[in-house]
């Protein structure tokens, strides 16, 4: 591993991120919140200065042609850690403790949407704008963003692009990685703009429309309204957000084919997308029945809220159209199962990913068939194509580690907090980048009251979950840390 490469890459990312940190100032000027200018200028300058410092130590080299695999993994991991730290600087100016600021920033940039805020009225609009913007930047992936906009990463892009999103499918829209990154961002921006327009037309204030659209498309879940989407008390807005959350949770490369190239078939015939659609429809019907049986809501609201909540949790957005922390245990159990699934591969959603769940089911089915037909040759096929053996073991490994990590984290948090529901649901919600859990950390609650250790564990969960475990797992091996000149 070459330290120079890592420092240079991080330096470049920090300078670019510092520039982006200036954008909230525009909002501050429009909203005439002049006190908000200073925090962002400070953050921006810190980031840029640090960026140049890193590059200075790295020798300002722009040659990333020989980037090794472990270097790529480390760059990606550190990029998330460091940009989250820079993003936390403005929060410090609003009275948040450093750990809380970092928690809020990590939660934002990893599109988790878990908040430590209790009283939303204390903060200016600019504060909420930055929260939403940080989620929007993280939604498509920090690295995808920089590969798209920074020409320095042209060659190295491939290595770090797939290190960030190590899904089982290597979906590329165009042969060149920078084009792919740009294409994905094009779809992302297009859908965001559409949603802003729809929300605004549905009667939401422009500022809220922008913030909510940012966090919907990122599958993030921060809302400037303390009551989340429920706070707008509009069925139309709820339905619009449901639709866009659904899109945010499906594969962007396939949406690119649909929206830009006008080819609907790759998306509609995609097995993962179909499975995703089936889960949403079936599980939300179950939830709807469960809500009706509880008898606390009307039929039309039950349909709306169950669909909204299922889409919100499966895509790992974490918005709420009702306080599901108050729902019955059976309804909450249905929601918890959704937390374990996550969005489609190549989407803004986090979690295990639909394709891995689909694979898991096929794997089980294969094992069962194999018992009855010991001599049968049974390939696992997704989209009518057999899944290669090494991909198979990678997915099985992923699923195993995901469960292992969840168990360890859940046990630790349960011991620290003395509350099994916070331990289990909080872990599921942070590792899957969903956001709210049940009880004190429910959609109307806050993570602010948790102990320091729990917050640290959750911060690690969020970053590891966002990077889909693999970079994190690689770091556990001693050979990963061999540096060379």
């Amino acid at each position, binding site marked *: 591993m070459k330290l120079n490469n890592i420092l240079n890459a991080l330096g470049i990312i920090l300078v670019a991120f510092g520039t982006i940190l200036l954008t909230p100032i525009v909002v501050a000027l429009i909203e005439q919140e002049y006190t908000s200018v200073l925090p962002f200028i400070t953050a921006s300058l810190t980031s840029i200065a640090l960026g140049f410092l890193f590059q200075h130590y790295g020798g300002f080299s722009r040659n990333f042609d020989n980037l090794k695999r472990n270097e790529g993994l480390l760059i990606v991991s550190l990029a998330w850690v460091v940009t989250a730290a820079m993003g936390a600087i403005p929060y410090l100016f609003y009275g948040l403790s450093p750990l809380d600021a970092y928690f809020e920033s990590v939660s934002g940039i990893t599109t988790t949407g878990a908040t430590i805020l209790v009283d939303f009225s204390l903060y200016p609009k600019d504060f909420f704008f930055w929260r939403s913007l940080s989620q929007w930047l993280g939604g498509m992936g920090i690295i995808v963003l920089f590969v798209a906009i920074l020409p320095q990463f042209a060659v190295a892009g491939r290595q770090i692009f797939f290190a960030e999103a190590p899904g089982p499918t290597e979906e590329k829209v165009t042969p060149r990685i920078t084009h792919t990154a740009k294409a994905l961002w094009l779809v992302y921006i297009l859908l965001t703009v559409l949603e802003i327009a729809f929300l605004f037309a549905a009667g939401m204030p422009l500022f809220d429309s922008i913030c909510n659209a940012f966090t919907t498309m990122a599958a993030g879940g921060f809302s400037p309204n303390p009551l989340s989407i429920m706070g707008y008390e509009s069925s139309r807005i709820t339905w619009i957000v449901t639709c866009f959350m659904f899109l945010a949770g499906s594969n962007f490369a396939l949406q690119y084919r649909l929206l830009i190239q006008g080819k609907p078939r790759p998306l509609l015939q995609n097995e993962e997308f179909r499975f995703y659609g089936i889960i949403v429809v079936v599980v939300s019907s179950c939830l709807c029945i469960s809500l009706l049986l509880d008898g606390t809501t009307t039929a039309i609201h039950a349909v709306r809220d169950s669909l909204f909540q299922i889409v919100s949790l499966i895509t790992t957005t974490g918005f709420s159209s009702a306080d599901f922390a108050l729902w019955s245990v059976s309804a909450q159990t249905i929601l918890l199962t959704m937390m374990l699934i996550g969005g489609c591969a190549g989407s803004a959603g986090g979690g295990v990913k639909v394709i891995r769940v689909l694979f898991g089911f096929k794997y089980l089915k294969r094992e069962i068939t194999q018992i009855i*037909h010991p*001599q*049968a*040759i*049974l*390939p696992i*096929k997704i989209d*009518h*194509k*057999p899944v290669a053996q090494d991909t198979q073991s990678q997915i099985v490994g992923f699923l195993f580690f995901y469960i292992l990590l969840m168990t360890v984290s859940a046990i630790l948090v349960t011991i620290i907090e003395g509350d099994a529901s916070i331990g289990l649901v909080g872990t599921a919600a942070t590792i899957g980048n969903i956001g709210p859990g049940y009880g004190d950390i429910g959609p109307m609650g806050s993570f602010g009251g948790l102990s320091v250790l729990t917050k640290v564990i959750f911060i690690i969960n969020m970053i590891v979950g966002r990077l889909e475990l693999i970079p994190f797992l690689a770091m556990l091996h001693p050979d990963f840390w061999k540096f060379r000149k």
Partner: protein
Amino acid sequence: MNILLYGATELGYMLAQRLCQEHSLTLIDDLKRLPDKFNNLDLSFVSGSGADIDALEQANMNECELFIACSTLDEANIVSCWTVKKIVDLETICFIRTMELYKNLSSKKLDRYLTRYDIDTLVWPELLLTQDIFRIISVPNAIDVEYFAEGRAKLFEYRIDEHSSLRGQLIMECSFPPNVLIVGITREQNLFIPDGSTVIHKDDKVIFMGTDSALDTLAATIFKSNNVIKTAVLIGGGSVGFMLAQRLERTGIRVKIIEHDKARCEFLADNLKKSLILHGDGTDLELLEGEGVDDADVVVCITNNDEKNLLCSLLVKQLEPTRRIITRVNNLRTGQLFERVGIDVTVSSRDSAIKELLNRVQARNVDILALVEGGQGEVLRLTLPENFQKTRVVDLDFKVQAIIGIIKRGRKLTIPNGGSILEAGDQLKIFTMAEDAETVKNFFS
């Protein structure tokens, strides 16, 4: 006609045997490898490869009208066909053994491409065999099935068992639907054309011809079977097994394939949608029992090894004597053996290929539509010439064994009786013995 044949293979031998009586045949191949049996045939040899231009020149290509390439090498066959085409304009027939090459050369997309492959007829015996097997499977209980006139007329062959209502009856007394004729009966491996006074015995194989709907009624009333084909087991997963499984899958039949080569199993499993691929040997009794092969509605043995096919078929027969078994035979002589030991339906890619090929070689207005009983009987299609006088069917005297199965006038199909009248321009489908085919052809021209 002067015919040039490239390839002293088993198939080449069978072709030569059929063709050398009527046509003058020249065979090209390496003389050292020439099997002895070719020496008994009346033809001339040229030593060399068909892809070698010198050998072709030597074979007096300029006087030939037809070139048939049937050597064991696909590429050599293709090259020789091209070479011939470059020099003289004659008809070429090329035999292919691999799927990829067949697809390349026969693809419908070809017309869009810049240059066409210059081969007149492409024959892939295994594809023809697959079609034959599929046809037979699709009619329950039938031993042989052929379609004519886009499926509006058919030929079915059935074995008469103990319980059949036709057993022991005179043909003229049998009550089967109108528009159905019995055109042939095979008794103890001998095919003959019956008349009204023939009695149908047990174990006779009876060949029916008729219109589409009439034969379906026949199948539903007299040879009714309550087992609609739902499951099939294929032993052998070569090209035939693969293509057959694809077709069966499309009709919703559940397919199991037993194949002994691991790599091939993986190929099949990757490329077939629903079939269950089992890695094992078709002669492994434990596997056959464990996988419930005896419960399948039809078992098809299509490995490329006759002995193995025979053994598999017998094993399955042992497990469940009434099971329908279709067995592939490569060698004609083993084919007769198969029937002796009670295997009803034998199919052969060579038969399928020869039928296709003879159609090309025969004169324009005569086609061989089907071969039955390993070539003992033929279904000929011929058109009555312009100067043909109106005649009643009873007044025709073929002097040999032949029966008119179907008369096609315009779009209309008639199953004739003695009083039917033949006119010039009618298209006849005549069932006749192979040795009498020539006489029948001459009779009408």
